[in-house]
């Protein structure tokens, strides 16, 4: 339905740029480059040709230890970085579209606070024996979805038509409340504070393929739904009334996008902790470089988001090697100044939404 909509009303709606093949090629190249860099570079300093030979299934001179480094540590971590980064960026871009708010990020409706509380409770409670690594992602996932659900119920329960503004405010309230509970629980159990802290700063590390398999199904569902809604988001950007005249159920479409983006965010947060800024800076960069239509922003956010996080993780692993820097520190350290640049230049370009 939306194909014709965007086609006929392309000038009224956001300038509906076509997604050019050129940019897809650049995006895929970025993903491949980041992936290969993540595989061949690392604290262990393995020889690049030998790593490549090993990955291609050829005979390499790596010993068993080094093969384990490449295949059991680096490979799942690179794949996880691509999945998490892509999902967070795509979800962020969708949130920004659906809320018509450039500051919206995937954690806007309380997903981060809910996940944080879930994980804190599990880590604190596990002092009596439960196995934290398997339960924590589930708790984070449930916490994130519960927080977003709560924000949605509160934000839309005021009667009448739910505005996106009341939804955002409900999200802020839910996030503050859950963060307060999380901080309280954490302060009461300071013996586990390092574990909670290290989760909150985000990490793509030690769980191997387990985390990848956990995230993959949700990522695929999220990607499919959000990418399928890229044209609808362009129409929604103009306003609900216009969308309705064009035959789109604005409210339902918005709900579907929010649910899908929240699902992906919850799954990403569950395996990687809280990684800040990816969901904001990647979509905005794409908007600045390529264009503002969601038909362009969504697929390219997915690709560049994956590449960005993969590279951020490479820095996290190597900058103070052999120590690690939490990846959330890297994304925010590079993200925050970058974000200021984006804001400055977008103001100059007269960005309105």
């Amino acid at each position, binding site marked *: 339905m939306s194909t014709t909509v965007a086609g006929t009303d392309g000038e009224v709606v956001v300038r509906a740029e076509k997604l050019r093949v050129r940019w897809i090629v650049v995006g895929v190249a970025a993903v491949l480059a980041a992936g290969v860099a993540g595989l061949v570079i*690392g*604290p*262990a300093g393995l020889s690049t040709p030998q790593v490549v030979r090993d990955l291609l299934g050829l005979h390499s001179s790596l010993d*068993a*230890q*080094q093969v*384990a*480094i490449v295949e*059991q*540590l*680096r490979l*799942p971590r690179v794949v996880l970085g691509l999945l998490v980064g892509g999902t967070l960026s795509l979800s962020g871009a969708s949130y920004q579209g659906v809320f018509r708010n450039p500051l919206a990020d995937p954690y806007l409706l309380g997903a981060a606070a809910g996940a944080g509380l879930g994980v804190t409770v599990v880590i604190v409670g*596990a*002092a009596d*024996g439960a*196995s*934290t*690594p398997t339960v924590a992602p589930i708790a984070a996932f449930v916490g994130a979805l519960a927080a977003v659900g709560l924000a949605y119920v509160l934000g839309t329960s005021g009667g009448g038509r739910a505005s996106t503004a009341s939804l955002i405010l409900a999200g802020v309230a839910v996030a503050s409340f859950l963060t307060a509970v999380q901080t309280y629980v954490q*302060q009461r159990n*300071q*013996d*586990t504070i*390092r*574990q909670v802290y*290290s989760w909150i700063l985000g*990490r793509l*590390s*030690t*769980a*191997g*393929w387990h985390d990848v398999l956990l995230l993959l199904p949700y990522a695929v569902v999220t990607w499919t739904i959000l990418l399928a809604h890229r044209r609808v988001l362009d129409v929604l950007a103009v306003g609900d009334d216009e969308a309705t005249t064009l035959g789109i159920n604005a409210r339902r479409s918005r709900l579907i996008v929010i649910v899908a983006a929240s699902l992906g965010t919850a799954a990403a947060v569950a395996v990687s902790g809280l990684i800040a800024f990816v969901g904001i800076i990647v979509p905005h960069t794409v908007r600045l470089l390529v264009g503002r239509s969601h038909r362009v922003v969504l697929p390219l956010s997915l690709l560049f988001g994956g590449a960005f996080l993969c590279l951020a993780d490479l820095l996290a*692993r190597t900058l*103070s*090697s*052999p*120590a*690690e820097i*939490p990846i959330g520190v890297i994304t925010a350290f590079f993200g925050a100044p970058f974000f200021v640049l984006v804001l400055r230049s977008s103001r100059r370009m007269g960005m309105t939404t």
Partner: protein
Amino acid sequence: MEHRTRVGRALAALLVAVTVVAACSSSSKTNATASAPIPKRIVSMSPTATETLFAIGAGSQVVAVDDQSDFPANAPKTSLSAYEPSAEAIAGYKPDLVVLADDTKNVKEALDKLSVPVLVQPAATTLDDAYREINELGVKTGHTNEASALVGQMQQQIAGLTKDLPKRSTPLTYYHELDNTLYTSTSHTFIGQLYALAGLTNVADAAGGGAGDYPQLSAEYLVQANPDLVFLADTKCCQQDATTFAARPGFADLKAVKQNHVILLDDDIASRWGPRVVDLLRQIVDATKSVPVT
């Protein structure tokens, strides 16, 4: 109106109370400077100090210990929080000496106002620090001789433990795990010096400097460093053991895993600097001796 007068009355009562306390304390203070009285109501907010107090025979003078002080078992454990200490709650035990492991929350200043003597004994960074703190506790509690006897005994035991270590051409390497996200400690820490006494080399030292004394190691670095010995000090906090360690991606083929040199430590003993460091060192030395000299 009524509310306001009630508040006013309460304030007045408080003022009187503070004045009285201040008056009492100033008189006791003059005593204290003349010859320090032996404290009879000690509150220990430091698990290490609690262990020391009981080891030097001052246990009967201790009226309350914080919620982390779980050794010895007969220490009067309370719900006082060592992490979020409340001067008011501590003062509720009417202490005549309060021992703190740090003073990040300005509890000392608050207790000073109540004229409660406070002794801050921060985490030791060397064995000598630890000995000095034990002696200090002895002097303050009237157990000077017991404290110096304890220190002498510890020094003797440590010398005995490290005396006949097997001679090796290349020193053994070790990894000391603080939690299952690969946080560790370098040789510059208190515990790092214990390992050094056992002749071990820390694989985390390469990560020192910029990353501080408690860096988080990257998994692939640890796999490549392939330490001879692995000491898990996260058996309580994170329920780690040789099996969970070996089950981590890429760790199954580590030397320490294959040769059963993953040693389980008690998180608490490994994070304190009291009399039980001797037990810890014994465990480290035994593990070291169990690795055959090649």
